């Protein structure tokens, strides 16, 4: 329905504006910038700072009104340039500065501060104020990540509105009244939110600052580039800012399609691990005679080529296997897919840790975030957005408030439960009937049904989720899917051909001329590969930025694996896997190489570059190309542009993909480009909404328009040569198996494990992050009161959880945990080893004495 328009006169200009538009936005649309503090385009108007006063016509003539709070009305006249407006602006600035410390020279906001900028533009230039100003203790840590300087606060209500309205965690509020009003947490309760960093981004003064950024740099010394957050697959748009080859901070860009300017703390403060050189793999390592030694790239690459050749000579192509984690960017994934499938020719490739079946079902019916949030019903399957793709949680809260019908299908309560219209339990004995039960709760009416699928319960094989997804799709053939599979570029890895049974593009494209005959990987699967490797059937196991310990393999088992076959790892961070490897290649990490990724809606997004790769690291595609050369086939990949040229030849998802696509949209295009409208042109961002983007020096291509991915990209690709059988339709083995996936049987006194993913899990990366490492919770076991009674234990006792490994933790009773389940909370890395791979893991409890 087109918006109803009203006609208004803004500074003498007659314009048509959608009814209900706040005056400030109507003025923005015609390029008239009214000064502002409390107004934020993604939060409701409160009209508290009075900085946006303009003269508005009314029944009794013109009067000063807050333009953020008042909506346009037919025939309204607005004047922003009169003497009255000028005086009002000067007055408000003088009032705000009355108690402001004016310590700009030592304030982190100095140089990008809306108060500073607007005082210069609209203030008197001199102060009449001689009295003593307010004093508070400062800075006050309101959390481990944020410090508060109360003297600088102008009471704009942005941080408090964010906490309450956007995040739904009102842990920050005003306190006191009048002159004594101040921002405050309660007692010793931390502002502990996955989204806390956003308040430092929207605070229009230097009152709230992010502890890791404090006193790190002045804004004008920073350089920035447009990029995409690399910590989950939601694909939040960011400006990544650096100084002296060190990342200083990340700010959210207001992308209409994705993150509405918000970020989660995992993404925002992820830079602390990138900067932590001590935990990075800085040079190639080679294990010789038991000892690990730093070697040159040439040595390391030569050694890899040698073991690959030997293994192939001994036992054929299938003696080499490749496992990835969805963390490589698109270019790297493509190059490694080509190396594995075509140059080495191995059918054992799984770059998705077993999630290929889900991805295959997803891409054919991918829904955009917008479609999911405006659907008739959103069915959330095995997913807790707050823990897996955090910013989607914020978007969802808003959508539910506006009437989105949410159906939750999870094993235990999640952040969705309070919002869902229906919660359906995902229990091991009901997997077969699930689709039918879900169908019954879908309301009739117009519009799409969208399934949001994730990997919440680590203890449940992705194949089980995939099976349920298939049955849902079979029952609702029109349903679309939005994927929340966690790793940043897992969807890109799928489309690049790093997934079982898929070739690049996942469509029916042509084989580029530089390819020979890719192996058929449709029978590969992470769990099977691992089993084969443990059984000694694989000679070389290549791990692409994948720490097996994090994936659930205990360190002892990784070491055993290293003795049975040659472990080759490509890694940015040291981990149990890199340490057990025969050869480790240092991989350039996030912000160290330009590239692209694909998010859970199938949107292609740019990854910017701000750093020199640490130590001797190189982009993953370079490593692939070097290994290929040593194997006698250089793959014809010499620049990232060569990869793009090939991608286009493959067609399918990549039909029509040109490096220039990033120039034409702010958000990046949904794939395949041909099927979707490429989206609107770049939008101007409100400089006061996210201070610090407009004020920072831009190096390289224009920031807002997006960077040309690779200036050297040229070739249009060769003509189609051969038709190949590819695509999601070739489907991964588990997808074909449908719901009959074996989930196993629980033995006596065994229960099904629920090990929900969390934002903060103690993997090698989080451990390397000084800002976030302390957020990992202690392990706890949650069981139903009945199970606790059967166990003869009391709430708070210590118990032993026995599965594929044993861990000890405190047990609690929780009435929301079903009796068939044992939920393990807390994320020390040992907990992850309880997952035994196939089906649905089961564990048993034992009470510890004393």
């Amino acid at each position: 329905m087109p918006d109803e328009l009203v006609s208004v006169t803004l500074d003498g200009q007659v314009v048509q504006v959608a009814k209900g538009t706040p005056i400030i936005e109507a003025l923005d649309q015609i390029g008239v910038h009214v000064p502002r503090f409390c107004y934020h385009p993604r939060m409701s108007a409160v009209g508290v700072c009075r900085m946006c006063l303009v003269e508005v016509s009314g029944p009794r003539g013109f009067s000063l009104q807050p333009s953020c709070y008042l909506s346009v009305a037919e025939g309204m006249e607005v004047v922003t340039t009169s003497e009255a407006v000028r005086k009002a602006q000067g007055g408000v600035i003088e009032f705000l500065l009355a108690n402001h410390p004016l310590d700009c020279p030592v304030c982190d906001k100095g140089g990008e501060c809306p108060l500073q900028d607007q005082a210069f533009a609209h203030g008197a230039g001199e102060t009449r104020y001689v009295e003593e100003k307010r004093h508070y203790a400062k800075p006050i840590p309101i959390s481990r990540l944020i410090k508060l300087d109360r003297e600088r606060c102008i009471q704009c209500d942005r941080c408090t509105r964010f906490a309450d309205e956007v995040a739904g965690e009102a842990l920050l509020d005003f306190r006191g009244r009048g002159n004594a009003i101040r921002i405050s947490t309660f007692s010793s309760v931390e502002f502990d939110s996955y989204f806390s960093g956003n308040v430092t981004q929207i605070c229009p003064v230097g009152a709230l600052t992010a502890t890791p950024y404090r006193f790190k740099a002045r804004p004008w010394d920073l350089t920035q580039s447009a990029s995409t957050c690399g910590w989950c697959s939601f694909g939040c748009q960011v400006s990544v800012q650096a100084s002296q080859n060190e990342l200083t901070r990340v700010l959210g860009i207001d992308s209409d399609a994705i993150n509405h300017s918000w970020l989660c703390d995992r993404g925002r403060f992820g830079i602390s691990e990138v900067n932590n050189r001590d935990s990075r793999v800085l040079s190639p390592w080679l294990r010789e005679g038991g000892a690990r030694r730093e070697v040159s790239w040439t040595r390391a690459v030569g050694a890899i080529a040698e073991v690959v050749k030997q293994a192939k000579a001994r036992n054929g192509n299938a003696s080499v296997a490749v496992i990835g984690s969805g963390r490589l960017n698109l270019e790297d994934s493509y190059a490694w897919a080509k190396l594995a499938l075509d140059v080495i020719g191995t059918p054992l490739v799984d770059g998705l840790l077993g999630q290929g079946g889900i991805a295959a079902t997803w891409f054919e019916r991918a829904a955009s975030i917008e479609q999911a949030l405006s659907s008739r019903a959103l069915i959330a399957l095995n997913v807790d957005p707050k823990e897996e793709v955090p910013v989607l949680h914020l978007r969802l809260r808003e959508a539910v408030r506006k009437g989105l019908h949410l159906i939750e299908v999870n094993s235990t309560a999640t952040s969705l439960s309070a919002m869902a219209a229906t919660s359906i339990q995902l229990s091991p004995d009901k997997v077969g009937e699930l689709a039918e039960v879900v169908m019954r709760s879908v309301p009739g009416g117009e519009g799409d049904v969208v399934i949001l699928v994730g990997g919440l319960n680590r203890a449940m094989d992705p194949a089980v989720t995939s099976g349920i997804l298939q049955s849902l799709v079979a029952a609702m053939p029109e349903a679309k899917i939005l994927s929340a599979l966690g790793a940043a570029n897992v969807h890109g890895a799928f489309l690049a051909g790093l997934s079982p049974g898929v070739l690049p593009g996942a469509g029916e494209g042509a084989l580029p001329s530089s390819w020979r005959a890719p192996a058929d990987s449709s029978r590969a699967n992470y769990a099977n590969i691992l089993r084969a490797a443990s059984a000694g059937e694989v000679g070389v196991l290549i791990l692409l930025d994948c720490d097996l310990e994090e994936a659930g393999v205990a360190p002892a088992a990784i070491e055993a694996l290293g003795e049975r076959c040659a472990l080759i790892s490509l890694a940015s961070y040291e981990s149990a896997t890199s340490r057990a490897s025969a050869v480790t290649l240092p991989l350039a990490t996030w912000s160290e190489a330009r590239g692209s990724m694909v998010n859970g809606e199938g949107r292609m997004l740019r990854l910017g570059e701000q750093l020199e790769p640490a130590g001797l690291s190189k982009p993953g595609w370079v490593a692939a190309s070097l290994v290929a050369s040593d194997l006698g086939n250089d793959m014809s990949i010499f620049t990232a542009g060569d990869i793009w040229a090939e991608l286009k030849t493959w067609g399918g998802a990549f039909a029509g993909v040109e490096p220039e696509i990033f120039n034409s949209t702010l958000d990046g295009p949904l794939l395949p480009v041909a099927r979707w409208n490429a989206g609107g042109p770049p939008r101007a961002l409100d400089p006061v909404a996210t201070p610090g983007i407009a004020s920072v020096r831009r190096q390289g291509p224009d920031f807002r328009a997006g960077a040309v991915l690779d200036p050297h990209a040229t070739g249009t690709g060769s003509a189609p040569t051969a038709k190949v059988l590819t695509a999601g339709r070739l489907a991964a083995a588990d997808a074909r198996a449908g719901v009959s996936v074996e989930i196993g049987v629980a033995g006596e006194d065994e229960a099904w494990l629920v090990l929900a993913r969390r934002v903060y899990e103690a993997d090698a990366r989080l451990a390397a992050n000084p800002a976030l490492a302390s957020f990992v919770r202690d392990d706890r076991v949650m069981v139903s009161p009945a199970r606790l009674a059967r166990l003869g234990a009391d709430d708070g006792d210590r118990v032993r959880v026995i599965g594929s490994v044993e861990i000890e933790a405190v047990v609690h009773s929780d009435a929301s945990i079903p009796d068939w389940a044992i939920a393990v909370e807390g994320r020390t890395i040992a907990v992850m080893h309880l997952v035994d791979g196939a089906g649905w893991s089961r564990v048993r409890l034992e009470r510890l004495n004393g």
Partner: protein
Amino acid sequence: MARFEGEMLGRAERLASLYPDPRSAIIPLCHLAQEQDGYVTEEAIAHIGELVGATGAEVQGTASFYDMLKFEPVGKYVIGVCTNISCMLRGGYELLDAASNTLGVPPGETTADGIFTLEEVECVAHCDKAPAVQINYRYFGPVDSDAFAELVGQLKSGELDEQVPEHGTLIRVLRDAPPPIPLEEIDAERARQDAEREARAASREV
């Protein structure tokens, strides 16, 4: 004792259930907490949050707007001496000094025995009896330094117990609210009054 327990918990729950949105009960519950402990303790704030579904920060934010809610321990008697214009003209500042001497604490503080807290207050609308003193929100005036010393004596000896209850006590007789009047009855009464008004207006026009 800081969280509500026993009979107090019953009263708290009843208060929270009185409103369509339990958050509306934040202020009455703060009064209840003050009645229990003499001031609003942190434990009470947390408990109120649980009862009405708000965070501690929100309850604290709402409550701290009001001067009559205290967040630090205060004396059994909170004595306010007015120094606003009428009282000032009639010796309010002198009275404040005298009060300070009598009690041995400056304004804003509590005596060591925890019985009196002295405050300087703005007009408490007792101007006709200036200079005015309020004790636990009960009014006295005009008060001079001798009268003030006498008041303090009477408070100590318990002579004024009937008139001035302990700080935090708002009401000593609890009454149940009458049963709610059915909406239809209210509508009918409104309609009747409207009709009467119209009839009156019509008769004037004639």
